[in-house]
């Protein structure tokens, strides 16, 4: 898979919570993707009473990730989508931490660059969470023999028509 484009991930982090910089993991179609060090915001140093210092993000964070944004960048099959999974982990100031959790997005691409303003059918969809659900409401757009589809079916909460 060619990863010549950039995906910008923006996290909104609730007040009183933080996400650890070094706990982010990214996978595209199940394959780990490294995020360039320079695309990570510095974050805030945090040090516990007995701990080494760690870098945390608060309020918001913007991460730049190499990712395919066109059909041409995907393997040459009948799929026009890939699955981006983001694993993250953080804590609350109240003194609890939540386990690493994964958010998966199905990114559906048109025949051309999605970002080009056009009405020719560029389209992408995404869904949050990893709960098993009913899947995309418009499944026909995904083709019928797309072997790279995630085994888990995701419920979309938003779709965008470019």
């Amino acid at each position: 898979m060619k990863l010549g484009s950039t995906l910008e991930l923006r996290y909104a982090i609730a007040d009183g919570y933080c996400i650890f910089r070094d706990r982010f993991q990214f996978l595209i179609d199940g394959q780990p993707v490294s995020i360039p060090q320079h695309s990570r915001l510095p974050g805030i140093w945090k040090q516990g009473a007995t701990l080494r210092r760690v870098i945390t993000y608060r309020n918001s964070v913007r991460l730049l990730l190499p990712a395919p944004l066109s059909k041409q960048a995907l393997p040459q099959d009948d799929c026009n989508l890939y699955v981006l999974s983001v694993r993250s982990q953080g804590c609350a100031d109240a003194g609890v931490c939540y386990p690493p959790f994964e958010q998966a997005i199905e990114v559906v691409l048109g025949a051309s660059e999605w970002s080009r303003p056009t009405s020719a059918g560029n389209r992408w969809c995404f869904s949050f969470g990893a709960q098993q659900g009913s899947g995309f409401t418009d499944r026909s757009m995904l083709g019928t023999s797309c072997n790279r589809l995630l085994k888990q079916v995701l419920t979309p909460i938003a779709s965008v028509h470019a």
Partner: protein
Amino acid sequence: MPKLILAFGAASLITMAAVALWLDPAAEKSDFPDRSAEKIDLTAGTIYSTRFADVDGNEQILGQWQHRLLVINFWATWCTPCKEEMPMFAKMQGKYGKDGLQIVGIAVDSRENVVKFIQNSPVGYPLLPDEARAIEFSKRLGNRLGLLPFTVAFRPGGELIFSRMGLIKEQEMDKLVAKNLPK
């Protein structure tokens, strides 16, 4: 360079809101914000027959401590508050171990991480790492959101007398242990 922007946050905020709802503002006011009355999904027999491997790979059955005051602390090396309270648990084990207290730390973490951790911070009580099973076990003991740290205490025989998500103060723990040690 083409750029696609995806905004995360909704799921995170939902999760965090759930956390906020769970955190009990009255907890600080009580000596023991005791949730033992809450239904847990396991019988004493099931708890005591549960097994986890220790850091050396040796299987440990919780039932070996059924005649002691058993405090199970769920933690992880990625959990900052967990690590901050572990010296307190180590201190309690040293102080009351001879009188029947047994602290056990079940780690939601890999054996490798836990081994690395105790090289610098030995605790003096058993640590049982099991990244795959620990959270589920804690949920069945009442940790419904799967957050850490989470601590439960059982009198000899398996009666749940204490359950806490979040940090425990030393004074509080000392009082709990002193009151419930085996006769």
